[in-house]
Structures are given as structure tokens and as C-alpha cells.
């Protein structure tokens, strides 16, 4: 059974077709890469999946449940976690608080327990802290724990964002350009984390990136989009050979 099933989704903004009939599936522990030139609709697909955009037609099922009628926070609670192309962390909060926010929907205590603190709230916060420390350990963020994220280097911010998504205990992870703007070393680190997440934690991943070396190395399958339309879907080797993909990236032969 597939974790995510996207069938014939259409999304347009006034006259612009952002997504034009995209369909794909993500299997358990699969790493699917979505690639395409700028403006191909990769991030729009993510925004549909996380409930920020609502497509005009099509069907999206996550763990067998329909996603389209749900609000972003409900989708998050179902186990969909994502990172953003431009780092969307909570800039005034520390790394710890950002990661703790990832666990927001796992908490069960309310505002009144919070005002009193002792008892439910304290127990839940301590347990969550222990979970978050596991992620800090996994992503090697120990040195930055107490720093407000706005002061951190870009590469570390990207890692914190990945950590926040992991803290949600996702059933599916959406990574929007996790290595954009990174140097070679940071890219290698991130690639290692992505592989570990899939292999050790068994979390299926949808990855968008422009770093073709990374995509072809990591992905199990690749979906190529161009102007919102699916161009090709297959293993990295198949996709690389596909003349339509070459045309989408380099233009048609004159």
C-alpha cells in the first residue's frame, strides 16, 4: 500500500496553470524526488500536500485518507511534515523551542495546565524534551541548542528545519530544496541525514532539489515536472535517458 497517492491534481491561479494533471504515489520507505526547471510547480505540489493551496480538481490520499478537505494543522497532525525552500523557522525562538514546536500536536495538555505548570504540563514538557534531545543528537545540533535561530548560519538553519520536521514524528517527510545554497560539505552532511532518515527511521520522503548529483544518487524514483505537467516518472537512470526531460531542461533541438 502506498503512503501517499496523488491523482490528476489541477491547480491554477487565475490564468496560470501551476499544476496540470500531476499523479504519483509514494511507497513505504521510498525516496521520491520531484525535479523540474524553475516554475515547474514543484513547490506548488508541496503546498497542495500540506494544505496551503487547495487544488481545483484531483484527489490526494494520505495513509488512505482524503487530504483535500483538511486544514494545514490537521494534515500536520496526520503525520505530514515538511521543510521549506526558504527557511521558515521561528526566528526569535531558540533551536530547542523550534524543535519543541514540531511536537506541538503530540501534547495533550491545555492552557489551564500550562498556567499551573506542575503535573501534566511539566511531565509532558520533560518527556518532549527527551524526544527532542534525540533529534538534536541525530542532527548534531548540540552546540546550537540555546541559540535563537536567526543568529545561526544558513546551513545550520536548514538542519534545524529538518529537525523540526522530524520532531513531528512524521509518516511522510517533504523536503523542499534541503541543500539549496549549501556548500559541498554541507550538502554531503545533508545527504547523509536524508539517507539515515529513510533507512534508519523508515520514513518515506518526497524531495525537491536542483542539485542533480544529489537527486540521482539518493532517489529511488524521480518525477520530472515542466510547466505544471508531468514529463517523466521513473528510476534516475530511466529519467536521465528520457529525451523529454532533456528537452524540458535544455530546450528542444532547433
Amino acid at each position, binding site marked *: 500500500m502506498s503512503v501517499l497517492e496523488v491523482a490528476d491534481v489541477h491547480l491554477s491561479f487565475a490564468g496560470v496553470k501551476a499544476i496540470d494533471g500531476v499523479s504519483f504515489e509514494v511507497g513505504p520507505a521510498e525516496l521520491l524526488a520531484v525535479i523540474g526547471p524553475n516554475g515547474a510547480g514543484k513547490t506548488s505540489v508541496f503546498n497542495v500536500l*500540506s*494544505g*496551503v493551496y487547495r487544488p481545483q480538481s484531483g484527489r490526494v490520499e494520505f495513509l488512505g485518507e482524503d487530504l483535500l478537505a483538511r*486544514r*494545514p*494543522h490537521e494534515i*500536520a*497532525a496526520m*503525520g505530514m*511534515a*515538511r521543510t*521549506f525552500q526558504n527557511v*521558515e*523557522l*521561528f*526566528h*526569535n*525562538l531558540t533551536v530547542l*523551542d523550534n524543535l*519543541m*514546536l*514540531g511536537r*506541538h*500536536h*503530540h*501534547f495533550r*495538555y*491545555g*492552557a489551564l*495546565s*500550562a*498556567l*499551573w*505548570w506542575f503535573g501534566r*504540563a*511539566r511531565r*509532558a*514538557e*520533560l*518527556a518532549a*524534551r*527527551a*524526544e527532542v*534531545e*534525540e*533529534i538534536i*543528537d*541525530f542532527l548534531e545540533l548540540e552546540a546550537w541548542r540555546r541559540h535563537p535561530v536567526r543568529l545561526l548560519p544558513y546551513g545550520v538553519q536548514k538542519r534545524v528545519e529538518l529537525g*523540526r*520536521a*522530524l*520532531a*513531528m*514524528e*512524521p*509518516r511522510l517527510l517533504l523536503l523542499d530544496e534541503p541543500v539549496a545554497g549549501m556548500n559541498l560539505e554541507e550538502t554531503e552532511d545533508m545527504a547523509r541525514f536524508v539517507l539515515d532518515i529513510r533507512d*534508519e*527511521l*523508515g*520514513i518515506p520522503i518526497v524531495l525537491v532539489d536542483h542539485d542533480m548529483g544529489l537527486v540521482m544518487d539518493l532517489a529511488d524514483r524521480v518525477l520530472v515536472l515542466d510547466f505544471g505537467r508531468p514529463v517523466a516518472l521513473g528510476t534516475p537512470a530511466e529519467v536521465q535517458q528520457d529525451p523529454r526531460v532533456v528537452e524540458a531542461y535544455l530546450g528542444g533541438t532547433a
Partner: protein
Amino acid sequence: MSGTRAGGPSAAPAIPTGRSRRVRGRPLLHTSYAQDMALLDTRAKRVSAAALVLLALALSAVLTDPALEVLAAAYVLAIGAIGLNIVTGYAGQVSLGHAFFVAIGAYTAAALSGPPGGDTLGYGITEIWVWLPAAGLAAAAAGVLVAPLATRLRGLYLAIVTLGLVFLGEHVFKEWQELTGGVGVGREAAVPTLLGVRLDQDGAFGTREQQLYLLMLVLLVVFAVAARNLARSRVGRAFAAIRDRDIAAAVIGVPLTRYKVLAFGVSSFYAGCAGALLFTLSGYVEPGSFNLLLSVQFIAMVLIGGVATVSGAIAGALFLSLLQPLTRALPALVPVISGDTTQTPNVFQVETVLYGLLIVLFLIFEPRGLFGLWIRVRNYWKSWPFSY
């Protein structure tokens, strides 16, 4: 990493989370998360917090009654400022309507504790533990009703709408004479009775001012600690997430509408309690008090004290309240400034200008407010006498 495995139940953490040992001479070495996440996590903080509370208690025996009344008012205003800081500082929803919620609290309490059968509405319930929560809840209910606006509007637009609330309230309170007594007349404020003991008359615990001072001090500590707890919980984090990035907050699982409503509710609860208490000091409520200036005063307290910090809100309230006796002394010193509201320039205009000026100066030179100044001082002395 078992705890984050997809779908699986959270495994019991193998890391110490409960009791653990302290190492002498290493105040920052925490050996458990409980130590690390404590409100007062170092010895220095515990000692200074206790010293501050003891000092505040001791002041009630040392200071004169008029000085105590100024401080008691400052404590009440601090409760209101903490409330504004919750919605504006933590949750980032700019509200100019704080005076409106303060008014609702003040009139709920006054009406509940007022003498039945008088000129104005009264039910004769003078016990403070009845009218204080009631005032808070009434204001919170109003806050919850207003909150849906905040889910549609942002920033300046929300500020303008909440500004409208102040004018709306001002008009209603001026015209609703049964409740408020009308302009220039006013009505008696809530009567603080604790288990049958009237605190606004000289009694067993000291003079009227001493009793009220102690009451306000205790309440301030309770409200401040509760606000700190809220701020460090999932709720406070969700507020901050909405302030910093609302879309990202929704995508990671924070329901925006619910938390904006909650922020307005809690903030208004604080405002309502502050309103109920504030006028017990003078014993008299006048409907003209709940104007834009009162809202601006609260905003000044938050900005001057420190945005999104509880201690900052308290510091700001103390700072502005202690400034007032100084400005009120101006007419005697500077003949141009009049003490009469009909004259220009008068003390009240000077105060308004001063608040504005202070806000501008703080925003330019220390946006973190008095709290930021404290951080600077602390950091300087941390490594003294070395530069690093």
C-alpha cells in the same frame, strides 16, 4: 532515535528526566532536564527572585501610605501590561483595545460588589475571590468575541480595528449611566473583602494602603508566575510561532484560529482583573478613564519594559508609574506647565508626549526595552573585569 520512529509509540526515554544531583560550584551544570527547564534554573536566579519578593514585602512596612498606593497601582498596571504582552508581545497581535477590556473588568467587578438598590447597578457581592475571577472572565469573553477579527486581519489593520473598540467602549460607558454613573459622576469601584475582612479600611493587617499593597503584590506574583508558565509551555511556543511565521506554524500543526482566540482570551482576562483591581485603590471609577491614552500607556509599558518578557512588562509598569509622581510635580517647578486640564500645556499632555518620546527612544536605542538594558548589564558583569 527509537522515539521518532514513524508510527511507533514513544519509547520511554533513557535519559534522566527526574531528580538528579547538583554539583557544588557548577551552577550551570545541569544533570537532568528538570533542572535545565526550571523557571529559576540557577542559584543566582533563585536567590535574587526571593530577595526581590522579600524586599517588596518589606516595603509595606517601610514606606509611607501614599508611596504604597503608587506602588500598589503599579503592580495592578503590571498585571494589565503582562496581559497586553501575552497578545501583542508573545502572539504578535497588535492590540490598541486593551483599555476596553480593562473597562469591562472594572465595571463587572464594580457592579458585582456595588450596594444593591443604589443609583447604579449593584449586587452586593464584595468577596474578592468572586468578583475578581468574574471580572477576568467577563473581559475574557469579550476578548474571545473580538478575536475572530484577528484571524482575518493582521498588523496595522488589526490595530485600527482594536482602536475602534476603545472608542466604541468609551461611548457606551459614558452613556450607560445605570452601570457607570455617567460622565463626571462615576460610581464606587469594587470593594475588596477577603473572607469578611474589608481590605480598603484600616484593619488587622495594617493601614488601608498596606493591606491593598500586599493584596496587589500577592496577585501580581501569582499572575506573573502563571504568565511565565504559559509562555514556556506549548501554548506560549505556539503564540511565538504564530508571531514569527504564521503559515509555517499552521503547517507544523498549530491551529491558528484557536491560538489567536486563546491569546486574546488570556490577555483580556489579565486586563479584566487589572481593571477590577485598579480602581479599588481610589475607590471610584469614572467612565472617561478608559480612553486611548490608557491603551497607549499599556503599550508604552510593554515597549519600554521589554516585548515578550514578563519581567519586562513589570519593569515597564513600575517605570511609568514611578514616573508619574515626578511629572505631576512639574507644575510646581515649571510655571509654563499647568496642572489644570483646561489649560495648555498641562501635565497630562506633557505625560502623553513623554510616553511617545520614551517609546520612540527605546525603539531606536534599545528595542528590547528595560529588559534589554538588564541583559546588557548582566553580560558586562559576567566577565568583569575582563573583556571576554
